[in-house]
């Protein structure tokens, strides 16, 4: 087990700055997820931690030991690759025992260790098969087993579930999270799937264009996104972003949006008194309720026309045109709603998010405090 810290890490490929000045602390035993769209630098960051890439500037420490230039093999880490990187010409057994063999670890209990790890990841009876003879899920287990047999200080997982079908992915998600809980090894998990990130991580680092926008628990990320990108990236379907006009009125902030005017307690929502007059308002589809199925705290009414519906079985997402702006709202699946109908929506102003239109940063007080603590 180990803690990790990135200090002022940069990665520049020729002229392309992949990672500009990254600072991040990962606690001992933590399950941290790097999430972001493709090309956002999350895999590069993981590869720098693995030692497969050298940072251009800065330093990386594992347990206060500077490993910036330590070769991958000496970092005592294990990595699961997106492609699994199983050795196709070796049996499952040889794949598992390859590491201990090349590290010249004692051969006497190697068989026992292989058996133990095989049982742990559910590969019993498949040890003599070649990777080509295994299903996707089984290959994934071999890759995990190969990481486990090392008993490393840190696990690195690079999009390990992206090659599995949906059902198996959900299953392996739970298995990996459970395994990590039992072993308590510091784990860095890279994914582009925000659902994976939300369900698995203790903390999530949201990446965009090489920068970490927010590092937080899944609940905090969802409730208090530090900026517009985090707000729209986390949660499915994404947060509605709407243009709004904002005016300060004593202790209240008065907002004009969606064809209505409403007010929120200013000190709860805005850090500074110097507020822009035009802001971007964010509201999650889950927080826009159908009048007939709304919590009593929802006071603000808006009306619109249904443009499209999308049902998942347990719920229906309805695209409603409100005063020329389309918003996505979550309806219960039993709601009898058709395209072209009028829809009444209600929401609680306390569920709103406000972002500066240019920087996209939140105007809200609380997440700003969280960000300061992390020195982002």
């Amino acid at each position, binding site marked *: 087990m180990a803690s990790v810290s990135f200090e002022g890490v940069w990665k520049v490929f020729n002229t392309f700055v992949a990672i500009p000045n990254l600072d991040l602390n990962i606690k001992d035993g933590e399950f941290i997820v790097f999430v972001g769209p493709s090309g956002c630098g999350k895999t590069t960051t993981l590869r720098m931690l693995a030692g497969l890439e050298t940072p251009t500037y800065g330093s990386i420490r594992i347990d206060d030991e500077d490993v910036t230039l330590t070769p991958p093999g000496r970092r005592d880490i294990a990595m699961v690759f*997106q*492609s699994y990187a199983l050795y196709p*010409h070796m049996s499952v057994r040889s794949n598992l025992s*390859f*590491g201990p063999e090349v590290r010249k670890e004692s051969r006497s209990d190697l068989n026992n260790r292989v058996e133990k790890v095989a049982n742990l990841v559910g590969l019993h009876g498949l040890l003599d098969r*070649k990777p080509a003879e295994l299903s996707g899920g089984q*290959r994934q287990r071999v890759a995990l087993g190969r990481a486990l047999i090392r008993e490393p200080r840190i696990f690195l997982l690079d999009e390990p579930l992206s090659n599995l079908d949906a059902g198996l992915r959900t299953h392996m998600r739970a298995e990996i999270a459970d395994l990590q809980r039992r072993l308590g090894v510091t784990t860095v998990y890279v994914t582009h799937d925000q659902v994976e990130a939300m369900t698995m991580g203790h903390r999530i680092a949201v990446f965009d264009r090489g920068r970490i926008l927010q590092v937080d628990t899944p609940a905090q990320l969802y409730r208090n996104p530090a900026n517009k990108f985090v707000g729209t990236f986390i949660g499915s379907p994404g947060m509605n972003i709407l243009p709004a006009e904002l005016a300060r009125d004593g202790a209240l902030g008065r907002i004009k949006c969606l064809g209505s005017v409403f007010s929120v307690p200013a000190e709860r929502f805005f850090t500074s008194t110097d507020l822009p007059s035009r802001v971007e308002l964010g509201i999650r589809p889950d927080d826009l309720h159908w009048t007939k199925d709304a919590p009593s705290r929802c006071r603000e009414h808006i009306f619109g026309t249904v443009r499209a519906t999308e049902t998942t079985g347990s719920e229906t997402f309805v695209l409603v045109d409100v005063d020329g702006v389309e918003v996505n709202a979550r309806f219960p699946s039993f709601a009898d709603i058709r395209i072209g109908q009028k829809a009444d929506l209600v929401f609680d102003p306390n569920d709103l998010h406000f972002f500066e239109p240019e920087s996209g940063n939140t105007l809200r007080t609380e997440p700003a405090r969280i960000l300061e603590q992390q020195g982002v």
Partner: protein
Amino acid sequence: MSTYAFQHLTPQLPSTEPIRVKRWSLTKVISNTTLLVIGAFFLLPMLWLFAASVDTSASWQLRVPDFTTRNYLLALQPDYTRALVNSLILSLIATVVATVAAFLAAYSFSRQHIPWKGPILLTILFLSGVPISILIVPIYKMFSYVGWLSIFPTAVILGVTALPFEIYLIKNAVDAIPLDLEEAAHIEKASTWKILSRIVIPLTMPGIASAAIFGFVNAWGSFLIPLVLISRAAEQPGPVRMYGFMNSVAINYGAVAAFSILYSLPVVILYLLMSRSFRAGFVLGGAVR
């Protein structure tokens, strides 16, 4: 679904005739006949070779042989067998030299950052098309100057002639191995030598095998280079020796045929041996990505 599960019956097939694809068509007949004719052009010389090798009075004509083993006995005389052994030595050295060097070069080309890699590879490809015989005069001069006109330096030169093409063959094979595999091994603390010996070489084996066969056959069939660069008759390989069956007065067709068959045996055996590693290669081809 569930109703079928209860019935334990194969479903009732439709009463109409099942759909059949027509087996014969004019185009198929024409194309197959053409192929048979072309095939005969390749088959007839082979047939002549076998017939002539056991014929008492073999000529250039294809005919039913008067059976004899005399041709083979002649071809198996010590002079000729030594020539075969020389061919074997020459080709094995050339193969080993070329394949080892080509593998190392190919791996570097595939994995390392090399300035002007593209132009260098293009040059290599160009060189593989240049016949070495155009350089034979300067090479002869150099070799005779340093006193290398013997079998071992010639074997190395023959290996070098196969090098460009072998580099290309093996580089393609190395390119096909995902870099992840090496990185995974690197993280496991495997040394470069371990990564090469336990991962890259086993996975490149089909490519290495084809390159090695190319190198072997390239040296095995070479006539001009040994003829010029080997000064002692006793060190000359098979093809040069075979020339001895033909003198200005007559050609001993039977002996030529018998010797040719003996001479082609090592190559046939090599293919049979190597075919195992080709098969292994195909299994790997469908492996995990």
